């Protein structure tokens, strides 16, 4: 198989390797394979392209949207004293849920006035274990200022820091599978769910199941933030699209006005 440089399409080396490794004779065959996820090819492709993609304050425009718009809106409708419940799923090695906590403390003037619960879940128990330990290297910290690192981490050695124990204790880590109905039935009444960069890797049926599960996990009027450039597979029947200057997020409808 040869790739002519003069052609319009740039072929990433990693993609070319996958095409060769699967014995696909052409793009079409390879993409057909991806679509049917034969031999878990999607996972292989993802692994080929993923180089520790998680870090603190990743896609922080969504965190900004949370403090600038979402929380205000949620609180307007929330009974007194009801906690704000936020869910990070998948949480991977913890950067996302800890970022949520840090962001709230740094950027939300009302953070001390409310009870906030942060739940963080993943299907991968090793990642959860690492998240609970809270040890990170330079790459995960790359978007944080020196001040932030001083404030929220303690240095272990040249290469690593450990997250502040108070912060670590603030997040509840659990194991959960987005497409397992029984798992997901244990999660209810969330105000904001961060479900970033995982649905795109699901096949159509799994994506729909996950979306339906997430619907049930949200309070009416609750919000979901997907990864940048992800779109909710079936938007109109389940979620409304909310456009804010910082981000586009999805909302479970407030009233049950489906008609009963």
């Amino acid at each position, binding site marked *: 198989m040869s790739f002519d440089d003069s052609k319009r399409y740039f072929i990433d080396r990693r993609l070319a390797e996958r095409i060769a490794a699967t014995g696909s004779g052409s793009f079409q065959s390879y993409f057909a394979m991806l679509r049917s996820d034969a031999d878990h090819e999607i996972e292989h492709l993802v692994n080929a392209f993923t180089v520790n993609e998680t870090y603190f304050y990743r896609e922080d425009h969504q965190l900004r949207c949370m403090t600038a718009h979402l929380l205000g809106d949620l609180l307007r409708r929330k009974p007194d004293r009801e906690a704000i419940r936020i869910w990070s799923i998948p949480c991977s090695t913890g950067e996302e849920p800890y970022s949520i906590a840090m962001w709230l403390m740094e950027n939300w003037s009302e953070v001390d006035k409310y009870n906030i619960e942060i739940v963080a879940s993943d299907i991968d128990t090793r990642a959860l274990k690492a998240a609970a330990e809270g040890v990170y290297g330079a790459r995960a910290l790359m978007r944080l200022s020196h001040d932030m690192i001083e404030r929220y981490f303690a240095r272990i050695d040249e290469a690593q820091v450990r997250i502040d124990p108070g912060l670590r204790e603030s997040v509840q880590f659990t194991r959960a599978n987005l497409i397992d109905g029984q798992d997901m039935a244990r999660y209810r009444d969330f105000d904001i769910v961060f479900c970033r960069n995982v649905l795109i890797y699901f096949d159509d049926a799994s994506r729909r199941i996950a979306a339906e599960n997430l619907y049930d996990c949200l309070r009416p009027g609750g919000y979901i933030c997907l990864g940048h450039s992800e*779109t*909710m597979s079936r938007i*109109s029947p389940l979620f409304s*699209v909310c*456009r804010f200057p910082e981000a*586009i997020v999805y909302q479970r409808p407030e009233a049950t006005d489906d008609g009963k």
Partner: protein
Amino acid sequence: MTESERPVAGAKARILVVDDSSLVRLYCRDVLEKAGFEVEQAINGIEAMEKVLEQTFDLVIVDVNMPRMDGFSFIRVLRGSASHVATLPALVVTTEAGPHDREEARAAGANFYLMKPVSESDLLRHVAVLTGAPQ
């Protein structure tokens, strides 16, 4: 479009083409770029909304039959947005031609509609009108 809103002479009008079909996007882009317009593409309504919020456009061309968010829904959302975005001229491209669709296009807030298959001349003529460019 008022006089003050017309594109400055010499400035290229910017057009966003929203269609899930790569061939249609390519076709529109070729036709419009040859005619001197700057063209951006979006493959669905969500991507289109992001681009419309981030960049300035003089016109959006939207396919009605898109899988995740149909063109009418997109235009309704557009019209419900913050002011500079809400008044963005919108040309819808549909495959049906019945009065019901014309009415729906109007009700959704589209400025005009074209039927597929779209000819070069029809496309350019409508784009010229909607961007206030000289014909």
